[in-house]
């Protein structure tokens, strides 16, 4: 088991290394660097000025060397300004003497670099944003998983029944409704003072002006309430729910045809007890894997929802970093994203082994 985990972690590290290099490569293509120079320096720079700007700010060296610097295996760049003799470098703040500064400052040293757009250390930005997204994910899972399991179990316990058909079709419908569609529909129905439910409620005197739910989750960053967080959470939960429910249904339906369930039924155990005591536990093994694998899948949803509802979490940061070519922030985002994908894969593998006694890893 230890060897298995060790090998998986090794592959993970290799994957993360390759992926960050790809991100690094794409963000450091010549046109992207030119864009960076012009946004950071001056929009009217000539080509020669762009090259000198890039050189002065440490983007001049070969790609692999700069990747090494970011990784922390190559010493950070250091240049003396020819005009005023000031030292500039990756590891030093402006004007600082290079002697006192560390030679390496990259990922391995725990330094994620500097965000050019926000003018702040990446590590100071990404932590808070992750926390915000964590809250959103927590609530999304808290809504999605129990309801999906319930729907799946109800549908799967009597395969082919009318309940099964209705719930299955509903599950399919939710998987066919991407976040940007459901979010839009939710806002129209519940968070508009002009159309949908809110004007009706105001008319009936059940609501004093304004809207029932809020179409913006900005205030949820400070203070989560039922009214400002329901729509983003529902939008994320709805799309993921159908998939988990269908997996649960399939697993439940399979378990219900198993020999031991048939035996129990023949013994006269009540249907309720069969479902609750015998079938449920075994039926939930497969959905566990699916739920874990939902994490990375939800990332796209988080990006859409955070953009739609103006919630400045990780997904929003990713969009900002990508659209502004904020290289080091984007790299940090991709590390986080890749880690989420790989760690959840690992957990789902290990968890599957633990939950399912039939599988043994030698």
């Amino acid at each position, binding site marked *: 088991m230890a060897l298995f985990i060790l090998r998986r972690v090794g592959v993970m590290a290799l994957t993360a290394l390759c992926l960050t290099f790809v991100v690094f490569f794409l963000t450091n293509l010549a046109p992207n660097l030119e864009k960076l120079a012009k946004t950071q*320096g001056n929009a*009217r720079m000539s080509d020669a000025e762009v090259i000198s700007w890039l050189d002065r700010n440490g983007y001049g060296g070969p790609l692999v060397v700069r990747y090494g610097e970011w990784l922390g295996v190559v010493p950070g760049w250091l240049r003396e300004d020819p005009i005023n003799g000031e030292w500039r470098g990756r590891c030093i703040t402006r004007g600082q003497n290079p002697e006192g500064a560390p030679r390496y400052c990259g990922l391995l040293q725990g330094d994620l670099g500097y965000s050019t757009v926000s003018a702040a250390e990446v590590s100071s930005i990404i932590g808070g944003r992750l926390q915000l997204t964590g809250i959103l994910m927590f609530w999304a899972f808290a809504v999605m998983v129990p309801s999906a399991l319930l729907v799946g179990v109800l549908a799967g316990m009597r395969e082919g029944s009318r309940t099964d058909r209705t719930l299955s079709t509903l599950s399919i419908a939710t998987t066919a409704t991407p976040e940007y569609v459901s979010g839009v529909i939710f806002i129209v129905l519940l968070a508009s003072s002009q159309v949908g439910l809110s004007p009706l409620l105001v008319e009936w005197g059940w609501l004093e002006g304004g809207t029932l739910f809020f179409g913006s989750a*900005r205030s949820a960053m400070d203070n989560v309430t039922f009214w400002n967080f329901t729509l983003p959470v529902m939008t994320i939960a709805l799309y993921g729910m159908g998939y988990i429910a269908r997996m649960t249904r399939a697993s439940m339906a399979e378990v219900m045809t198993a020999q031991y369930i048939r035996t129990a039924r023949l013994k006269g155990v009540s249907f309720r007890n069969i479902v609750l005591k015998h079938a449920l536990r075994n039926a939930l093994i497969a959905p566990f894997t699916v739920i874990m694998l939902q994490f990375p899948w939800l990332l796209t949803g988080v990006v859409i929802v955070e953009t739609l509802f103006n919630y400045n979490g990780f997904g929003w940061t990713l969009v900002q970093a990508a659209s502004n070519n904020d290289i080091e922030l984007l790299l940090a985002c991709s590390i986080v994203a890749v880690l989420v994908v790989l760690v959840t894969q690992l957990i789902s593998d290990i968890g599957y082994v633990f939950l399912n006694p039939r599988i043994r890893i030698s």
Partner: protein
Amino acid sequence: MPSTTTPHLATHPAAEMYAREYKAGQLSRREFLVRSTALGLSAAAAYSLIGLKPAIAQRATPAMGGRLRIQQGVLALKDPRTYDWSEHGNVTRGLIEYLVEYNRDGSFSGMLLEGWEANEDATQYTLRVRPGVTWNNGDAFTAEDVAANFTAWCDTTVEGNSMAARMGGLVDADSGQARDGGIVVVDDLTVQINLPTPDITLVPGMADYPAAIMHRDLIGTNPLDHGVGTGAYRMVDYQVGISARMERNPDHTYWGEAYLDEITFIDLGTDPAAWFAAAEAGEFDMTYQTVGEFVDLFSAVGWERSDVTTGATVCVRPNQLNAPYDNVEVRRAILEAVDLSVVLELGMNGQGTVGENHHVCPIHPEYAELPAQVVDKAAALARLQAAGHGDANFTLVSLDDGLTRFTCDAVAAQMRDAGMTVTREVLPGSTFWNDWLNFPFSATEWNHRELGVQILNLAYRSGVAWNETAFSNAEFDQLLDEANGIQDADARREVMARLQQIMQEDAVTIVPYWRSLFRHYRPGVVNADMHPKFEINVHHLGLSA
């Protein structure tokens, strides 16, 4: 200098002349105020010259205390001289202040300056520093601070210092620094500015957002790094792209009145729909700007509307360095095909007045009225075919935002109506702004300037930095020089008429409309009116008593 006892009633021979012109109906009130206050009259004095009560002096007095949340982009800060968005100025205005403030009615009033006088031909300005102002680090604010800032503004070697262009003749063209003897500290509270040529735009320049006054020892730094300023507030929290929060500085005695205890700028991105959703969710109290359909929407949910007519517009311009736009007939055909009233309707939601394909707005004092533009789609196509470009495919590039994008979509639709082939391309801001001067055919948003000549100098003179049309016309340049030297608006108007005509004849750019700008705020917010240059003056803001 006129010898009067009370400086506020100090008057100026030229100002008295303007007052006569105003009374004779030759000058609009707005223009009168711009010009007379730029010469050093206080707004009150200017109003009294023309026998009116000053409207601006009657700003309501809000209650002390309270918190206000303002929707506005929160950008990374830098050396104020290099500010390139109004938002930069707004977010630091509570901390670092300006010498002069441009008011909504077009007049100027003193902030860190108590007053200023210009000599008769506007070549010498005497600036009187407000006494009793201190920096929040305890130092006194003196003429040395003012002079140091002027010197710094004139430094053309600083990358992105846009103040140098506003200082005009004060910059020595050879050294790229301030002219010797141009900035004289007379005493602790007086600074004299000596210009080689008359310049009526110096005071407007001092009121612009990059002209924030920094401590004399801290010039060239980011105000966020040290927090030293003369303003009533201090920055508590600054997160780019998210929010900026400032609170009343308890360790500092502010020279003026500031009402609010706390001000938060909330960045909700560039999508007005998101602003509206956040407004409905009660997440802020005042918008930076309200655009398009959202003007009616905000009003519909009970917010107060404030508007101001400006010379702001969107220029849909061909760049003459690129074929086929180097052919004047092609440009004329494009202009002839586009019905500007439709562009106003679709691009601006009808909020503004129709433009005339030249960049001088009717509210500019020197505006000359020309015959109306003719739209003839059939003739336009015939003209294009005659020029041999009947099958040309025009690619119209724009920014991916509401205003310029819809304006370009509307222009493209008009051209298609005339039988031309148009492809539209939209680019994200980060890509668009890197290349905005060089696109063969694209659109640019231009803000309001106080005088008509200012914008012609900035964007249409041969070879100037922001000349996005690549327009180059010797006659135009010469006439523009001439116009710059004429103080009297009526005399200037004759030259302007020809300048405007040249722009139309050469089909330089489509100027579809003059925008009205809107701002909304919750009932109970005081002094939050829209400003022609998008300024938010936090020291006036407050909540009603």
